[in-house]
Structure formats: structure tokens, C-alpha cells
């Protein structure tokens, strides 16, 4: 491997890395916000809104991110709505992730047995407090692995951003390969930077999961 080439490409990768991380995490934050709101609506069976959320989930869960990005980036301007590429990336990732998060968090809320609510009611808790102290914590604990898996999945999905001309890691690698044919070096750096981006998230995720799940699930993974 040509270390000279590696050194000269490094700054470009670092820049792409920060762009990818920025868009990725902003999109994830958006997906969590959508997911929490969507899960509440579905869990509490809010009329009308439930139907809207269900349609949204099916639409975004069953279409690829690339197609969604094309619609937002190339389609919306035709309707007179032009959005900068970076915002498109965040929006696309947030909407795709939101559909996954909605389903994960909803299943966590629904999975808390009714008997938990009843025993809390019998103690004199109000419905609102039961949700705060009994249902929500258990739901968060049980959906932790699913939410972490979604986050990692979404970070990897950022690799299609290059299709809407965002200079992310994938774009940078393809661009450099096209210019200089240093395929090995460019792909090597690509893998390294994805690992730098994802490995800490994955490890931190496992650590947090272990911590919060100890009460209910003990040491078993």
C-alpha cells in the first residue's frame, strides 16, 4: 500500500467523516423525535393520527433510502420546494429512521403487561404517573437493543448520500478512485473511517444496554 497516497487523502477523508457524522447524527436525532411521537400516537391509539402514522411507517419502511432521497432532492424542486442537499440527507434519514423507531418504541410500550398498570392503579397512581414511572422505563429498557440496532443501521445508510452529491465518506472514496485509481488505499481508508464512526457507537451501545437491562434481565445478554 502506498503510504504517501494514504497521507495525502487523509484530510479529505477527515472532512468527509465529519460531514457524515454531522448529517448522520442529526438525522438520528430527528428519527428519535419522530419515533417517540409516533409510538405515543400508536400506543394510545389516538384517532385519525394513528392512521396517518401507520401509513407513514409503511411508506418509509418499504421504500429504499436512495429512492426517498431522490424524491426529496430531485422531486420536490419540481413542486417548487428546493432543499439544500445536506438538509435532504437529514430529512431522508430522519424519515426513514423515524418509521423504524416508531415501530420499535411502540412494541416496547405495548409489551408492558396490563397487570403492571393494574397493580399501580391499585396503589393509587394516576394514569399519567403510571406511564412515567412504570410503563415508560420498562419500554425504554426493553427496546434498547432495537433502538441501538436502528442507530447503527442509520449510520451505515449514510453511504447512499453520495447519490445526492453530498461529499460524505462514500462520495470521497469513489471520487478519489475515479481520479487517481488508488483503489486499495481509498477503500482501505473508507473501511477504517466507517469503523471509527461505528465501533464506539456499537461498544457504547452494548455497555449502556447491559447497564439499563440489568434490573429486569440480569447478566444474560
Amino acid at each position, binding site marked *: 500500500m502506498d503510504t504517501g497516497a494514504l497521507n495525502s487523502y487523509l484530510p479529505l477523508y477527515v472532512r468527509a467523516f465529519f460531514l457524515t457524522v454531522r448529517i448522520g447524527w442529526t438525522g438520528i436525532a430527528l428519527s428519535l423525535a419522530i419515533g417517540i411521537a409516533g409510538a405515543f400516537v400508536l400506543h394510545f391509539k389516538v384517532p385519525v393520527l394513528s392512521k396517518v402514522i401507520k401509513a407513514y411507517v409503511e411508506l418509509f419502511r418499504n421504500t429504499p433510502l436512495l429512492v426517498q432521497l431522490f424524491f426529496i432532492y430531485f422531486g420536490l424542486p419540481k413542486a417548487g420546494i428546493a432543499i439544500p442537499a445536506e438538509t435532504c440527507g437529514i430529512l431522508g434519514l430522519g424519515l426513514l429512521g423515524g418509521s423504524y423507531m416508531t415501530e420499535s418504541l411502540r412494541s416496547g410500550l405495548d409489551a408492558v403487561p396490563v*397487570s*403492571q398498570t*393494574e*397493580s*399501580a*392503579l*391499585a*396503589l*393509587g*397512581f*394516576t394514569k399519567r*404517573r403510571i406511564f412515567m*414511572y*412504570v410503563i415508560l*422505563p*420498562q419500554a425504554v*429498557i426493553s427496546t434498547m437493543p432495537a433502538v441501538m440496532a436502528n442507530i447503527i443501521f442509520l449510520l451505515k445508510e449514510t453511504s447512499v448520500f453520495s447519490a445526492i452529491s453530498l461529499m460524505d465518506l462514500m462520495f470521497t472514496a469513489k471520487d478519489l478512485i475515479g481520479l487517481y485509481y488508488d483503489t486499495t488505499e481509498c477503500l482501505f481508508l473508507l473501511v477504517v473511517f466507517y469503523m471509527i464512526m461505528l465501533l464506539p457507537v456499537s461498544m457504547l451501545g452494548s455497555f449502556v444496554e447491559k447497564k439499563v437491562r*440489568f*434490573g*429486569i*434481565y*440480569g447478566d444474560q445478554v
Partner: protein
Amino acid sequence: MDPILTVEHLHKEFDGYTVLDDVNMTVNPGEVVVIVGPSGCGKSTFLRCLNGLEKIEDGKVLLDGKIINPTGVDIAKDRQKIGMVFQSYDLFPHKTILQNITLAPVKVQGRNKDEAVREAVSLLERVGLSNKKDQYPRQLSGGQKQRVAIVRALIMHPEILLFDEVTAALDPEMVREVLEVVLSLAKEGRTMLIVTHEMAFARAVADRIVFIDGGRIVEEGRPDEFFTDPRTERARRFLDSFEY
């Protein structure tokens, strides 16, 4: 002495099917009433109607002469005066034993946390579980969980305790440790309404036995009378089914 609990003409239906039909009952302070009857006769549903976990179609339930309204604004307050222990314990799995017990007194009754912890520990000592206070429910046996559930109800200082088949999910050797706790509560003069299938226990703990079948009170009386010489044919057949 005025009764703590009065039930008048209680009528309960599930999807048009009558589960409880014109049930009347009074429970006086310090009295231990044990409800027995075949499975599906409506015993558990009856208890759940008393603290508003089930809505009733007709009749009324009065606590200290005041009507319990499951959809009223006071229901959460009323429920604090009615302790309930369930068959499946229903401890909060994400909280330690101590947190399970102190959550309601602190968050619902607004009591001082240190004071609640002190009382929780002394109650745990009483049921022989103070060494488990920092463990999680999953680390306890069924009998231990049920004793914690009893403590969780006791710390609210309820006027009346409802026990819904609290030993039905337990292994035989654990049944005893739970029943002994219930028996000691009866001895200190607590007002209790107990649903159980443990006939020997019912006989030992009850001031009065109420036999329910098909959603109606079929027979009511002192335990020695009921168990040795039931007045109704239905009660006789029910008691016979416990003998081999």
C-alpha cells in the same frame, strides 16, 4: 360500629354476560371475610369491582359510607385506602425491592423518602426479607415476591386489604410463608377481604365465610359452621370436591 366497606346490589356484566348478580356485603372494622367458590364464579372480579379496576353495571360500593366511582376524580385517593395484592405479585421488574415499596408512598402520598424507606425496611424485617431490599424482583422466589407485594400494599396504610388468590401461583412450600404473613395481619386486627382456594387457611383466618357460585352469594356464615355443616347443597358439593 359503621362498616368500612358496603356493597349494595352489585351487578357486573362482561359483554352482556352476567358475572355478578345482586351481590350485597358489609365488612366491619377488624373483620376478616374469606370468599370461596369454584373457579370462574366471579370471586376475583368481585374484588376488582371494589377498588374500581372493573366498572360495575349496577349497584354501589361504599368505602366509609362514600361511594367509590371508578371514573370519578377521587378514585386514585380511594384506592390508596384499599390495599390489593394480586395472584401474580405484579412487582415492578425495573425497580429494586425497596424502590418497589417506597415508590407509591413517596410519589403518590408525597411522604418523606427517608421516612418511607425506614418503614419499608421495618416491614421487610417483619416478613423476613430485609436482606433482599436492594435486589430486583427476578432474584426472588415466588413466595418472597408475594411477601414484598404485601409489604408494598401495607406501607400505604390502607383501611382494608384485598387478597386475590395470593398463593395460587406458588409452590406448596412457599404457600405457607405467605399465608403466615396474612394470618399475622389478621391477628393484629386488620380488616381484610380474602379470595382463596386454601380451605384450611380460610377456616383458620376467617371471621366469616362467603360462598359465591354463578355470580351470586349462595351461602354465608361462620367458618366452623360452613366447613362442618354447610346449609346449601351447592356448598356441600363444593367442599366435597376438596376431598380425595
